């Protein structure tokens, strides 16, 4: 459940200084560049550049890996599926009906590089963005409704409390002799009961929080909301977008030059 606890971004990290929406746009540019090709060269080059940025997050690699393991598992899963499913070229290894071919290896490498190169920018954004700055920027620059942005922000604050609720509910069940035992059915039932109990707790907390927010004028109509903090787009934010665009174009150019670039619908 520790995945639920938001990462506290280091405000002094180089990447933390950019406007959150500029970072999101930059991640979007990388994604577009990678959706236009199926080759392994473009994502490999971009992934290399992205990895160079990891120290600029101010978060240690170990922490980042611990928080993003589901992604790594997912990329590995996609790779294995491609290894097995894609046929063609030489057979490298076989076991009964399972066959690993050279085309399969190529596909697995390309797809997993792509997944990682698209996802890593998103992780860099999350790891370097204070959720409140993100909400401010989304409201001020992209005109997201304040009700939605700050409502979600407040809900985010409840997540660590929910992780605690989860632990307490499972203890309470054990204290009453309701631990799941050894059978998988028992585990499933205990899990369902626990999810329900935590949901009830979440709703109650949510209602209390909503009352407290309403008591402070949140969601009131009539007075236009003001902003205590500015999230301006500065020159460095535009440089971030220009640099990202240049990097994507350069990686694509290299890929085209070596003859690897391959659009999906060709």
């Amino acid at each position, binding site marked *: 459940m*520790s995945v639920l606890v938001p990462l*506290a971004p280091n405000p002094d990290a180089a990447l933390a200084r950019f406007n959150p929406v500029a970072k999101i746009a930059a991640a979007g540019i990388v994604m577009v560049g990678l959706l236009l090709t199926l080759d392994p060269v473009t994502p490999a080059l971009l992934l290399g550049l992205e990895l160079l940025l990891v120290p600029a997050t101010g978060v240690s690699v170990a922490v980042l890996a611990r928080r993003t393991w589901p992604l790594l598992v997912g990329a590995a899963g996609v790779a294995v599926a491609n290894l097995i499913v894609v046929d063609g070229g030489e057979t490298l290894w076989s076991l009964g009906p399972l066959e690993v071919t050279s085309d399969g290896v190529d596909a697995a490498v390309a797809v997993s590089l792509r997944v990682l190169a698209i996802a890593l920018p998103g992780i860099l954004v999350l790891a370097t963005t*204070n*959720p*409140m700055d993100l909400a401010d920027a989304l409201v001020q620059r992209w005109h997201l409704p304040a009700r939605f942005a*700050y409502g979600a*922000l*407040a809900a985010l*604050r*409840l997540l*660590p*409390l929910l992780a605690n*609720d989860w632990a*307490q*509910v499972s*203890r*309470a*069940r*054990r*204290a*009453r*002799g*309701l*631990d799941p*035992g050894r059978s998988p059915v028992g585990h499933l039932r205990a899990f369902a*009961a626990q999810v329900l*109990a935590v949901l*009830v*707790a979440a709703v*109650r*907390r949510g209602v*209390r*929080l909503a*009352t*407290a*927010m*309403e*008591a*402070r*004028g*949140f*969601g*009131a109509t009539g*007075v*236009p*909301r*003001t*902003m*205590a*903090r500015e999230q301006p787009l500065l020159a460095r934010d535009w440089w971030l977008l220009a640099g990202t665009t240049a990097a994507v174009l350069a990686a694509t150019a290299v890929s085209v030059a070596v003859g690897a670039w391959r659009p999906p619908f060709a």
Partner: protein
Amino acid sequence: MLLLGRSGAGKSTLLAALAGLLDPSDAGEQEGAVLLDGRAAREARARAGLVLQDPESALVMGRAGDDVAFGLENRGVAPAEIWPRVDEALAAVGFPYGRDAATSALSGGEQQRLALAGIVALRPGLLLLDEVTANLDPAGVALVREVLADVLGSTGATAVIVEHRVEQVVGLATRAVVLEPGGGVLADGSPAEVFGSQGAGLAAAGVWVPGRHPAVRREATAPAGPDLVRGQAVRFRYPAASRDALAPTDLDLRAGTAVALTGPNGAGKSTLALAMAGLLRPTGGEVRAQPALDPPQPPRPLWRWRGRDLVSRIGTVFQDPEHQIVTATVRDELTIGPRRAGATDAAAGARADELLERLGLARLAGANPHTLSGGEKRRLSVATAVATSPRVVVADEPTFGQDSRTWAELVELLADLRDAGCGLLLVTHDETLVEALADRTVTMTSLPR
């Protein structure tokens, strides 16, 4: 103004109405009107500020200053004015840290002060305080009381205060109003007059009237028995945390004794209690059951016991009673433990009925536990913990939210358990409970931050 009344008199509902937060479209029935400065309370919301019991779910932002600014932004205060008003409000409540302090790292008392600053910054003419000291340790209560006195003095605002333990705030009040359940005002006057004329009746109805406490010292009837559970150098640290949530602590629990575990919020009392109940694996040290508890064989540390072995030997009352609700009716809550421990349905049912009767929950036997009031849930959670007649009871704030009558009933129940040879470990801020029951008090100290 102190707003008094027995449990269920509608105190919190009246506060919500004054804050303009009652939505007529949600109401089954609504009569009468609440006017602030001659306008309907719903239209005059900006004149009132409501502070609630649980600061943890009242804070919206991650940083203290941003949280205070939140209300000002919602009310459309000009950006240039916001930060001066934030600083002013933080100073008014004596907030000890800067605007950048992380709200999640604050103690309960500090969080409640911050929540108060968030309201004070809005400069309400009417402050509504709904049991704002209930979750706090004695130091936190003192802190909030001081701040209230300052703020009321400097702003000239009116405050309406609902508080369970009236003596915490009675010094602030110039007027006391007693609500009559079912409608109407029973008494209205200075606190001295109201407590003088109505004190006996209020106390009989369960209101904690200053100077009329039900406190009766219940001594143990037998000398302490053998050790039941022994914790040695028990230590706990959350994964990835930089400091211990519980510093190494020794604690023995003997049969026929009541040990009170006290100390400020954050000292690790609840953590130690969970470890002593076998529900938390200590990071260091060990909690072991002693032979008198008849531990299952082969012997192993308490945290590795099966639930079925725990339920018949150790009963636990959790800090938040909602965490321990596992069934859909109040009566099922009480029968499930004994049945898991191997009792027949008839025996489990008889025990359940006895506890329901004793703790004033009989009329709620078929109700969904989630629909109970806070005080009722607390009593239910104590009842579920003792339903299997365990040798050890570990209870985190067992008297929370009780009126003076149900409080006395709980103390009786716990004292009877002790007389029957049970070892009680009571985590509590309730000094009256400690005076009434504790044979030994262990005071934990705050860990350095």
